[in-house]
């Protein structure tokens, strides 16, 4: 307390300057943490936070025993794995080609075009999906009919949506990731490539033996960092593509969309909060684990 008072009188202005930001985090991040108590109640709107019936672990038990938790976890993790692995591989390939291709204008224009999807709202992805796949007049069906096939009702079939979701995730993140890998490639000294050229190595050999090995640390680091967030779903992406189409939930419902529906559609506050707390809790453990691994191997890149 003494120390605080001394610091307060010495740096009062600094305290005042950060006060609004601290207040923001207290209100919008720390106060809601008290609300995880909803997860242990059978929430009623009359009772509110502490007036609702306390039910212990019952919500969690229901989520577990009904299989909902398993489906949600499986979907969230598998989609994120596909996003992370395919995304990074694709971005890496693009970055390598863009770093070696000679046409300056070609590189500039294609890089700009690939970065464009990052800038648009996910609602526009919804517009694309409508244009392409809606059952009465989507473009894919136009083409199918022209080629003499039967039109396909996308909204009744779960099979194609996995690929559609993964496609639009890759679509949105391609330019962003390519830029990060491109920056890593640019930081490789030219001397390695020059020396290899003199020794007669062709371009494939140089990429295989110089560029790729030197990118492995960046690749692993980015993958590890993403793995820390593997329980966090991309709500925008899934909700704009699938919406509230219950037919498709079995293969497209992730924790985030479930929590959202608990709040906005089913009004099941206790159950939704429980699923959210499950996600936050194991998410924290995952980040700690990832951070531990990074700290062991490459300390200067550890998160904390």
């Amino acid at each position: 307390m003494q120390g605080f008072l001394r610091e307060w009188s010495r740096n009062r202005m600094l305290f005042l300057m950060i006060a609004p930001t601290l207040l923001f985090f207290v209100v919008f991040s720390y106060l809601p943490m008290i609300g995880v108590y909803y997860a242990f109640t059978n929430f009623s709107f009359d009772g509110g936070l502490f007036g609702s019936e306390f039910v212990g672990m019952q919500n969690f038990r229901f989520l577990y025993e009904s299989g909902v938790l398993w489906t949600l976890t499986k979907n969230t993790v598998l989609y994120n794995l596909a996003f992370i692995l395919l995304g990074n591989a694709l971005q890496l390939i693009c970055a390598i080609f863009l770093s070696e291709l000679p046409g300056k204008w070609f590189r500039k224009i294609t890089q700009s075009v690939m970065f464009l999807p990052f800038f648009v709202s996910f609602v526009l992805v919804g517009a694309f999906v409508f244009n392409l796949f809606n059952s009465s007049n989507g473009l894919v069906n136009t083409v199918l009919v022209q080629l003499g096939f039967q039109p396909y009702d996308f909204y009744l079939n779960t099979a194609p949506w996995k690929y559609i979701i993964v496609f639009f995730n890759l679509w949105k993140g391609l330019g962003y990731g390519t830029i990060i890998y491109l920056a890593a490639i640019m930081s490789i000294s030219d001397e390695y490539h020059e020396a290899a050229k003199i020794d007669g190595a062709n371009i494939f050999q140089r990429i295989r033996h110089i560029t790729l090995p030197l990118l492995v640390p960046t690749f692993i680091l980015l993958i590890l960092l993403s793995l820390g967030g593997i329980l966090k779903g991309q709500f925008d992406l899934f909700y704009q593509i699938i919406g509230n189409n219950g037919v498709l939930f079995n293969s497209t419902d992730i924790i985030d969309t479930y929590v959202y529906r608990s709040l906005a559609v089913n009004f099941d506050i206790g159950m939704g909060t429980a699923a959210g707390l499950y996600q936050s809790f194991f998410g924290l453990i995952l980040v700690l684990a990832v951070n531990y691994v990074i700290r062991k191997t490459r300390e200067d890149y550890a998160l904390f």
Partner: protein
Amino acid sequence: MKIRTERSTVLFNTIGYVLISLFALLCLLPFLLVLSGSFSSEQEIIAEGFKLIPDQWSLEAYRAVFSNPEQIFDAYRVTILLTLAGTALGLFLTSMAGYVLSRQEFKYRNSLSFFIYFTTLFSGGLIPWYILIVNYLQLKDSYLALLVPVLVSAWNIILMKNFMKSIPESIPESAKIDGAGEFTIYLKLILPLSAPSLATIGLFMALGFWNDWFMANLFITTESKYPLQFLLYKILASAAVLKTSIAGNLSPDFKPPAETLKMAAAIIVTGPIVFLYPFVQRFFVKGLTIGAVKG
């Protein structure tokens, strides 16, 4: 030997040009589809569905939108004001917090940094946050609900702090000896030196506000308060029929364009971003490569 090297380079370049062109085309294709959809005629869509290149071009959808543009203008006004206010306020708070946390002589800089950082590691989740905003702060259907809960982000503060750490400590120190207060030092010395990172973080914030539909989806119920993206979402979901003055005054069996109108609305909402994109792209690229080194 020389010939072999060249041949492999030709092969590499061919694969590269084809592959990269293909990816770039795939990135562009959805935009082109929506664009051509917006210029199609409604009858053709109903009869034959969306096409990449319509047989018949038509301005009917745009005419319908602008026959009664009030709804779009309202949404534009909300979004522009929200983006300006949110970015200005957010940038002010973020840079101020970043400055305080970067000051070596501020004793609590590490513990307060962790206090902020921890919110990215653990959260109460969507529902307690929603209930706080709606029941306790009473912000349902208020413009403030779109602004205040997303005003600052922990990541941006950390990014700002790391950038400001690279400014030599001797600058605020010597200004202090000359009698300048901390706020003056921040405003007159540190902010101008931080212009590049302010531009980058500010643009990311502006993009976030411009593209947001989620906050409006949760909190806004009055149609005239919809921001752009949420209006588009509602139009796409056919939940909000874009009000056009065409419907009433034509023959009873005339249907106002609905499918092409959705596409036209998407173009009108996205247009400014695509138009501004070439000018701001480099700031984002710079920001990414700074941020990528250490978040």
